[in-house]
């Protein structure tokens, strides 16, 4: 039914010296879906994201966005066409208050062109748009939180701030690199509806996660990576039932049985 997928990754390979971090990974991301990417530590998830978003150049392979080749373009150009990302290790501007963190992406050419988050083509008052975004992602508008220094905010808020930076660019895709990790159960519980709301806004989301239970609740499709290669792809139920996925995570089924009894 659909002609070209939103994002198409074809045979991406990335080697660092003698180590092949990603080895011929291919997958597609469809418009409006939530794609989960899982895999054990070191399976190449973050490297795939870095290759797509231009933070590293893939050794070989191609990345297409709406059928257009974007392989190896610099990171700011890729963000400029609407492919945004969060960082696993949060990268806010620690020396600024929370809301000023958003004035920076809102100053970018893309935000000014598109009007920023939900903007109608022209960007209004940056500070107001910034506070609007912060409220959307769970900073209480009438509290002091948006005005607090970023350096004293807890992890939960910093993870949200990462998503906020993407939203300021009025993104087509947000690639979330482990936004649930390091959060408490209640913090994750409030993040899940946020992700679902973003999907309803028409934003396509790629989520790299280790918190599988929560990921399987929101993801439409899941891609499993192991040792830099695609192990399998399917809907959450298929992936959860697949024994090879469990083996990839736990090494053997015996260990998994131990976990069940623990």
């Amino acid at each position, binding site marked *: 039914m659909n002609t070209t997928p939103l994002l198409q990754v074809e045979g991406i390979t990335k080697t660092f010296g003698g180590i092949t971090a990603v080895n011929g990974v291919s997958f597609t991301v469809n418009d409006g879906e939530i794609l989960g990417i899982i895999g054990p530590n070191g399976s190449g998830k973050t490297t795939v994201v870095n290759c797509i*978003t231009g*933070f590293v150049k893939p050794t070989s392979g191609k990345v297409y966005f709406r059928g257009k080749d974007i392989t190896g373009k*610099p*990171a*700011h*150009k890729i*963000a*400029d066409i609407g492919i*945004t*990302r969060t*960082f696993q290790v949060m*990268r*806010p*501007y*620690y*020396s*600024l208050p929370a809301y*000023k963190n958003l*004035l*920076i*992406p*809102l*100053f*970018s*050419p*893309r*935000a000014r062109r598109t009007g920023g988050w939900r903007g109608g083509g022209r960007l209004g008052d*940056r500070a107001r748009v910034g506070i609007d975004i912060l409220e959307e992602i769970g900073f209480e508008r009438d509290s002091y939180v948006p005005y607090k220094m970023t350096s004293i905010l807890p992890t939960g808020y910093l993870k949200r701030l990462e998503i906020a*930076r993407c939203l*300021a*660019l009025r993104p087509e895709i947000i690639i979330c690199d482990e936004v649930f990790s390091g959060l408490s159960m209640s913090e994750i519980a409030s993040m899940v509806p946020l992700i679902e709301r973003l999907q309803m806004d028409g934003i396509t989301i790629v989520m790299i996660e280790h918190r599988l239970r929560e990921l399987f609740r929101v993801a439409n499709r899941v891609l499993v990576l192991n040792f830099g290669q695609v192990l399998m792809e399917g809907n959450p139920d298929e992936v959860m039932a697949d024994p090879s996925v469990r083996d990839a995570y736990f090494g053997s089924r015996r260990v998994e049985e131990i976990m069940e009894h623990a």
Partner: protein
Amino acid sequence: MAAEQLRKERIDRGIKVRTEGIYALMSWRELLYLIGPRFLLIAGMLLLPLLMPGMYWQRVVSIVCIYALLALSFDFLAHFVGLVSLGGAFFVGTGGYLAAILNTSFGLPPILTVFLATLLGAALCTVLLLPCLPMRGVYFAIVSLMYPLLLARLIEAMNILGGTDGIMGVDSFPNRWIEQYLLIAVVLIFLFGARRLVNTDLGLVLRGIKDNDQAIRASAMNITHYKALAVFIASIMGCLSGACLVHIYMWSGVSQFALDFSILPIAATVIGGSSTLVGPVLGCLILVPISELLRDFGTLRIVSYSLILVGFIVFRSEGLMVYGQRKYHQFERWTRI
């Protein structure tokens, strides 16, 4: 029995909070709290030439302003963009030689040469520094340190631009009052301009580069582009000081590429308080006269000068202005943990 542990607590003064935003207009006291320090600085700077005992010390005021511009440029680049520049001498030399050439070869009056040498020099410096801007780390510092050495040797070895003699017969400013007040005005304009700039949205982007350049890339902005813009702004201050220096000395030579112009501004920034922008100007007001007073001691001048610097780094590494601003805006008390 565990020893009682105390911790120093710093709390903003009520008046500081009251003077943020529109509430500053509440009373004369609040207004004075805001305007006072600024007025003190501006009035002090403007009165400085009148208070000097003689021609010699009036000349020192001009030199203070030259260094203040360089220190301002260093502080702006290092603490608001994250580029540590050791290239004060590069800016001074480029601006200075350009002003001398424009004046002696093209016969332009000082006011025009200063203006043109500043813009042309800043463009030239930015283009020459451009190749090391996409890199992170110490490369910018190294390259900016090497350029003045390279250019000075090039002029000497190839005997161009006057060679070791330099370019002589450069016009001076019409008179010493114009010279001093022009420089003082320029320092004040750039000081308040830079303070304003770092709080605009563009300034936030520049500070963001220092804080977290990867996040800037992820925000769809080209870091190199903004770094180049920042270097251009900083070179404007540097080349302007160089151009003025040449007209003060009425001579341009390879000593304008000397390391003093790179090092003294950094020392002044350390003493005055880094990332305050006012601090470096204050540092120059202290350091340059001291270095003049110690001229009689010959080589020992460097010793006492270094001792001051070491003393500051060890005992007051934050610098005078950071300390002063803290005392002005906050009170301290000991609390039990």
